């Protein structure tokens, strides 16, 4: 719920920079190691926007896999089933380079009075 609130707050802050428009969709990036359950976030987000002027705001979630870089051969790879062994040289000396994202990626805004007012983004 705290995360959903932070996303909504960020949207409100950002909207201050875009007068004459309204937000249609906010995109977030969540790493699989970020301890965020997509469904729970979506549920909380929809609950908190209900009684606001942003009730039609859509939430886009992009899930980012855990990626490691091999310290021996430099190969970057996606870690599956917690197997962090380098698929190229089999070294276990690999370090995590991404996968714990909890980021705001983008905001889609529409100008008031345009033809698609009230329509949800189809992306």
């Amino acid at each position: 719920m705290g995360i959903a609130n932070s996303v909504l707050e960020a949207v409100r802050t950002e909207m201050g920079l875009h007068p004459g428009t309204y937000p249609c969709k906010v995109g977030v990036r969540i790493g699989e190691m970020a301890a965020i359950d997509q469904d729970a976030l979506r549920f909380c987000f929809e609950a908190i926007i209900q009684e606001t002027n942003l009730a039609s705001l859509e939430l886009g979630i992009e899930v980012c896999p855990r990626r490691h870089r091999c310290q021996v051969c430099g190969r970057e790879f996606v870690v599956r089933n917690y197997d962090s062994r380098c698929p190229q040289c089999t070294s276990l000396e690999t370090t995590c380079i991404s996968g714990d994202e909890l980021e705001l990626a983008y905001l889609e805004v529409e100008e008031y009075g345009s033809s698609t007012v009230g329509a949800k983004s189809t992306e």
Partner: protein
Amino acid sequence: MDRVPLERKVLSENDRIAAELRTQFQEHGVLCLNLISSPGSGKTSLLERTLEALPARDRVAVLTGDIQTENDANRLKRFHFPVKQITTGGTCHLDARMIERHLADWRLEDLDLLFIENVGNLVCPSSYDLGEAAKVVVLSVTEGEDKPLKYPSIFFKSDLLVLNKIDLLPYVPFDIAAAAENARKVHPGMEIVKVSCLTGNGLHEWMMWLGERRRAHKALLQKTAS
């Protein structure tokens, strides 16, 4: 339709305060550790045994978080170190603002070591940076050895795993080797200490880890200062 790139952390406000706290901790030479576990794994017991073992002249303080009650602070106050309870009133984790607020009337220059005992929860506390130097996750042997795989984030982000309640190993079907293996699948090379806060078994290893961390922190600060 315009797409505006945002490209910032969702918890950027929390992270901003946490970064300020981290700078203050560094400036005043305070090692801050954030203890996280599910409810009842033994964070408070570990702190009791730790405070009991530390010399009275040590400059140590504890912030302890719970949704309700002052029970934990009351348990920890008898060791005569400064202790403050943070009651979140419903929030399932501590955030950096709560830490900032509760530290306001403590002088950081009087401290060398600050423990933050988070709200019992293996999920949300892992998302909120509190400005700590390290997170420590506590798992007890009554919880099941697959917890690191079910809740990978906190094991991934913690420097140390404290496996507690090992006195119960004869009575519960807990495979300690599998637990360690699972933790290291999520966090290769993770340090692990096995303790019983009830019998005191293994606490020496925890105190060694803590002492080593304090020495390393001090050395780092001296290096930065010179």
